[in-house]
């Protein structure tokens, strides 16, 4: 069973503007962790908003767990699709952090005992348990985002969409969220779609989709992603510094079997490359 399927989807924001998605097809299997990359305006955020019915395509079909999204079932679908946006400012309803995480659980009629336990657990997952009684609007941007992620995780959705969810976090917050994603990936059968620019998030993905001009430009893995460096640069994406350095060294006839994603991989590859030279 596929978790998410796009069939010949066309979408534009209004009749005067060009199509953001043009005959877009994509299947994501259950349990997959997928990273979606692309520069601003490539259509990647549109994809995530279509998956939970925030947007409706002009033509084509979108299926979640093999069920086509319609106006009649969009609320059912959303129960299974948790979404975390880039900017947490617009996602708060509760007067305390606890109330805020409780909001989604109350809406779903979760019993009180379980609710308390889930609130605690999900706040612990994002390292915010000591802020349970704080007012959300007094938290910093990064802390707010961690609460937003906790609120979604408390509902235990089958599909989790993260739309540049870590882009506002500080390095510590980002690491915690990445660790959380990793834990979810190990334990659950959750399908995760991460829309991201962050290399550390990309590394967590089983599959990487690069979007350009409303279509899939590359469908690859993290190991192979940067072998397409020319293609990536031609659509305005930047390469990690370690890959750029490896490419510079190739000019001096050093060879890299793998394009290194961090300094350890780089120096290891360089060691081998230097031996074989």
């Amino acid at each position, binding site marked *: 069973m596929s978790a998410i399927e796009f069939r010949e989807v066309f979408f534009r924001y209004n009749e005067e503007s060009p199509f953001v998605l043009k005959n877009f097809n994509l299947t994501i299997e259950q349990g997959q962790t997928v990273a979606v990359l692309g520069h601003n305006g490539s259509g990647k955020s549109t994809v995530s908003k279509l998956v939970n019915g925030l947007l409706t395509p002009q033509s084509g079909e979108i299926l979640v767990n093999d069920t086509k999204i319609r106006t009649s079932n969009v609320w059912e679908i959303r129960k299974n699709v948790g979404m975390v946006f880039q900017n947490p400012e617009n996602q708060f309803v509760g007067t305390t952090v606890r109330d805020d995480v409780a909001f989604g659980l109350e809406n779903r009629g979760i019993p009180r005992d379980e609710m308390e336990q889930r609130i605690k657990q999900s706040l612990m997952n994002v390292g915010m348990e000591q802020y349970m009684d704080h007012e959300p609007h007094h938290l910093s941007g990064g802390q707010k985002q961690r609460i937003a992620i906790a609120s979604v995780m408390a509902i235990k959705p089958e599909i989790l969409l993260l739309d540049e969810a870590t882009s*506002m976090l*500080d390095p510590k*917050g980002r690491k915690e969220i990445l660790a959380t994603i990793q834990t979810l990936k190990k334990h659950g059968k959750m399908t995760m779609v991460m829309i991201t620019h962050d290399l550390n998030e990309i590394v967590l993905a089983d599959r990487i989709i690069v979007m350009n001009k409303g279509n899939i430009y590359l469908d690859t893995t993290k190991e192979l992603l940067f072998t397409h460096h020319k293609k990536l640069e031609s659509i305005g994406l930047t390469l990690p510094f370690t890959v750029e350095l490896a490419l510079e060294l190739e000019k001096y006839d050093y060879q890299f079997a793998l394009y290194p994603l961090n300094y350890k991989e780089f*120096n290891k590859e360089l060691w081998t490359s230097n031996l074989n030279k």
Partner: protein
Amino acid sequence: MDIQFKQVSYTYQPHTPFAYQAIRNINLSISSGEYIAIVGHTGSGKSTLLQHINGLLLPTDGEVQIGEYILSSNNKRQDLRKLREKVGIVFQYPEHQLFEETVEKDISFGPHNFGIPKDEISKRVLSSIEKVELQTNFLEKSPFELSGGQMRRVAIAGVLAMEPEVLILDEPTAGLDPKGQIDIMKMFYQLHQSKQMTTILVTHQMDHALKYADRIIVLANGEVYMEGNPEEIFSKTNQLQEVNLDVPEILTLIQDFNQRFNGTIRYQRQSIAELAKEIVEHFRENKRL
């Protein structure tokens, strides 16, 4: 304009159960024309600190001196208009503050409020749109039909139109894609160099602090934790780790390289091509041995 913090503390909602001391006993001096990076984890007091620099917040204790202005809690209300003309703040997500019908009107808004004559405003609008590297045909457009990165540039142009002597940047690259980040950081550096503008950058991105700042101030739990030039700061790996800050990858890579291959490469803001060359040269020389 020199900036000095003398034993500055600030408490939000004092005398209430929610009282929270965001910064305490801060002593700092920033000279005219410096490029300063302020780093620190979330909640370390960075944003509170910088709001003192143009009098948006007044210290609960201590005083802040900016040029001839002295700001402290027992100040009478003074006219901060001149100060705010000279200290421009680019807040986080400045594009959220755009509201006018056209880009031109939006950029004019600040200077207009400060009573700058019309023909002077038109001049400033043109020069600031140029500084943010947007074409003049943007002036007629609605800011809301632009892309996120373009909107941010318009918002920044609005701050530059005040012709500030001090430019404060609160995480100016947040939410931009990597290419947008590189472009905008280069743009600020250019402004800093060509106008001798004092630049205060608040950032989570240590590589930006490394690449551009003359001096780095590390905040932790509302206090100054460390202060020094980038080389000094980033050599204190353990101390940084204690406050959850990373060393930029380029430095870790060079350090690891030097250890593994017995190298002597130093980070000197060299380009990637130059670094590659140094690596190659190192291996060439060592082959001869």
